[in-house]
């Protein structure tokens, strides 16, 4: 299939006129028609005629031109329904485009639709959605991960070339791991959040989801940078992610935090991550055990701060605007609103919100300390392979623990690249993640690229 290929190869072939944007779009549309009823990756599909018209007229101005993509439905799209996975916004047609949407669209990519997700980002399995769960393309009795299960499943099943995901606690990485694709959680502030429906403002990040580290580097090049509409976007110059991609990682020190490899970790997942560590040694890196002692507070800190912010961010859905009332929030969302409201209340603020903020500082320092010793750290993305449908949504605590390895990345604000590192004996994809210091995307992408040059996990695709 055309979209098996990398974005830069597709772009080259487009420019050489070996293929046309219509060819790629047609292939994706066929795939959507064939597989989406099974997978349920889309919440809103752009009309196929519109897509093909768009593809016909596309001018090849950038490497993203003519490449079909999808958006997690957390992104505001002008005149195109945007739901954040919730019935509260079931009929909401926005008036403007998110910054990331404008950037990708003006680079010439072709939007195919808005993808399924846990409502407001509240979940790790795309089961907390009001639009029916997304199925895992590798085993449709299992979940695709979350909250961005829709975009990940669409890439794995070749309904598109890439997606813009959103990661507040693992929402890009967890579904990337469980769907066998590659996703980048950027440093907080590297990509503008303007137009990304807020889950937890100080955790939310906008990033690419694709099949390879190379694709992610290319997309990041187009979406990163300071935005006058986002005061938390970073003024640091955007690096050149592509030109350094092929640099080797000889001599780089990769830390393996023991806290990520202990209790609760599935043995198959553990073995695959350790094998990947060996691969990095073969590539010239040094692997060392490190320790992140504050990690055990990661869940508590995250599940106080993120709900606090979400309780405030979701206050605008008050039933006066947007057509639907608060009764449309799901039990999981109501739980998070209540936890956050409680943590911010007079008399509890100091014991919960404030204390968690102080602990957040300690977690940041803990990571800084580790990054004084090593260039990046390697860990699993999720403690288990993809779960069965119903397993997580019916067990709120288990649901929280599914994100145990990814949450603290957002608490610390650092970047992380999730990529496939093998399969279980039953053929389910397993993901690993590389985390680095603030604004180390370039290095993480280099390491991911180097790994993917000598492995083939990322080119496997589900038989559907």
């Amino acid at each position: 299939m055309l979209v098996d290929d990398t974005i830069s190869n597709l772009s080259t072939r487009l420019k050489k006129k070996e293929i046309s944007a219509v060819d790629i779009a047609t292939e994706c549309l066929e795939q959507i028609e064939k597989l989406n009823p099974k997978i349920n990756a889309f919440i809103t599909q752009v009309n196929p005629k519109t897509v093909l018209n768009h593809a016909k007229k596309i001018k090849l101005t950038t490497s993203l031109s003519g490449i079909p993509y999808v958006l997690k439905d957390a992104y505001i799209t002008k005149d195109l329904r945007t739901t954040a996975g919730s019935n509260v916004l079931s009929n909401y047609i926005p008036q403007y485009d998110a910054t990331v949407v404008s950037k990708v669209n003006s680079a010439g990519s072709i939007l195919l639709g808005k993808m399924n997700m846990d409502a407001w980002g509240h979940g790790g399995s795309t089961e907390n959605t009001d639009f029916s769960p997304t199925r895992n393309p590798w085993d449709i009795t299992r979940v695709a991960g979350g909250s961005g299960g829709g975009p990940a499943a669409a890439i794995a099943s070749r309904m598109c070339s890439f997606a813009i995901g959103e990661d507040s606690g693992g929402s890009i990485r967890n579904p990337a791991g469980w769907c066998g694709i590659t996703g980048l959680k950027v440093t907080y502030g590297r990509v503008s959040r303007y137009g990304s429906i807020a889950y937890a403002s100080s955790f939310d990040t906008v990033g690419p989801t694709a099949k390879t580290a190379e694709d992610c580097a290319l997309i990041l090049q187009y979406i990163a940078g300071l935005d006058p509409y986002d005061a938390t976007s970073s003024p640091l110059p955007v690096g050149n992610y592509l030109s350094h991609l092929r640099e080797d990682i000889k001599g780089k020190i990769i830390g393996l935090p023991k806290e990520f490899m202990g209790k609760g970790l599935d043995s198959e997942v553990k073995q695959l991550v350790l094998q990947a560590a060996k691969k990095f040694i073969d590539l010239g890196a040094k692997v060392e055990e490190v320790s992140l002692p504050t990690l055990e507070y990661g869940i508590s800190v995250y599940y106080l701060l993120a709900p606090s912010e979400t309780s405030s961010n979701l206050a605008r859905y008050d039933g006066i605007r947007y057509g639907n009332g608060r009764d449309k929030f799901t039990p999981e969302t109501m739980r998070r609103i209540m936890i956050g409201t409680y943590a911010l209340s007079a008399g509890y603020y100091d014991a919960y919100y404030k204390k968690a903020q102080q602990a957040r500082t300690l977690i940041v320092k803990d990571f800084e300390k580790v990054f004084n010793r090593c260039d990046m750290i390697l860990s699993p993305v999720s403690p288990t392979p993809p779960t069965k449908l119903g397993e997580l949504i019916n067990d709120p605590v288990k649901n929280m623990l599914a994100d145990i390895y990814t949450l603290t990345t957002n608490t610390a604000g650092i970047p992380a690249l999730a990529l496939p590192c093998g399969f279980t004996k039953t053929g389910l994809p397993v993901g690993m993640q590389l985390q680095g210091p603030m604004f180390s995307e370039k290095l993480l992408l280099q390491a991911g690229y180097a790994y993917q040059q000598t492995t083939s996990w990322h080119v496997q695709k589900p038989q559907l």
Partner: protein
Amino acid sequence: MFKNRNFKEIVSWQTVLGFEVHIELETSSKMFCCCPADHFGKAPNTQVCPVCLGLPGTLPVPNARAIEWCIKLGLALGCQVNLFSKFDRKNYFYPDLPKGYQITQYNIPFCHDGELLGHKITRVHLEEDTAKLQHQENMTLIDFNRSGVPLVEVVTEADFKDSDDSDVFLKELQQIIRALGISSADMEKGSMRLEANISIKRPEHPDLPDYKVEVKNVNSFKFIKKAIDYEVTRQIQLLESGQIPVQETRGFKESTGETVSQRAKEEANDYRYFPEPDIPPLQFTEAQIESWRSELPVLPARVREELVNRYQLSSQYAVIISSDPDMYAKFLKNPSKATANALVNKRPLQTTQSAEVDREVVSKVLIANPKAVADLKSGKQQALFFLIGQIKKELGDVDVALVKRTVEELI
């Protein structure tokens, strides 16, 4: 009022009076978006964008000029500036608040601990204005033109003696704001809004009373004075009859000169303040603050002093010229008494209220109440309120401050 009173029971009371003053800044754009900040008289909902409508996905980007102006006002009021500061979210539900929270400053305001005319300024902080509700017969309409307009809040200590004391202060504050050129501070247009916090206590009691009445939505100096006087009288009357005034928000009814209950304060609202995560904390340097300080204009008090001492103008002329930055600038071009005369005479005539009350009626009341007059002479302020009450019975709705002045003159 004041019927069947045994004046032997009158003991003295002390007014506890402080202010929250909101000032809309006249920056060209709103606090967190690019919409025009000047909303007065504009067609409803014509100066709005996704940000000030609080639409999903939008983010606030603070207006640097508004921050500068807020700090300059703080400096003009002799405040300390917090070099590290931040914005916070104040969470509450109201239809004029599209995000479900107001972006304001909670525990680290830009400025704190200032002083003006001997009154302590607690803090000067920056926030966003809300939308405007227009109540109609069967519906309420929302105009978002005002949503997100930069709003400075000046909070004073409750150290005002009475409404005369506060009148001078508030007018001076208005002149300082105008001299800075940051707002027209026009109360009728709502670009300067006063909220008086009033309660009454025994002078020997060191603590504040455990209730507080907030009087708001008063749109002139005259009316806030009337409202304070009325409120002081009302509360003393309640206290003297053994009741404790209800903690509540009251408005002012211009037609009757009375304050009326608007809403009783339930238990204190829990606003769940927390640092606004969409706006990074702000760090200023001493040099930045000093540079802003050096840009401050000559403030009205200094101008008046100069006009009187250097140019030998009467204090009346000095007040008039100093209160109008334009006039002052014109005067300085050719500073002479002749210029002052010309400027003062040319200014548009202002409608004046009747500056007198019927002295005969006042005298009659005083003669009829020798005990109260004696009490007043011995310093018992309560007697004054009694007398004012009696005079109001005769004259109807009159300017309480004016009656007070007349009584004091006649005694």
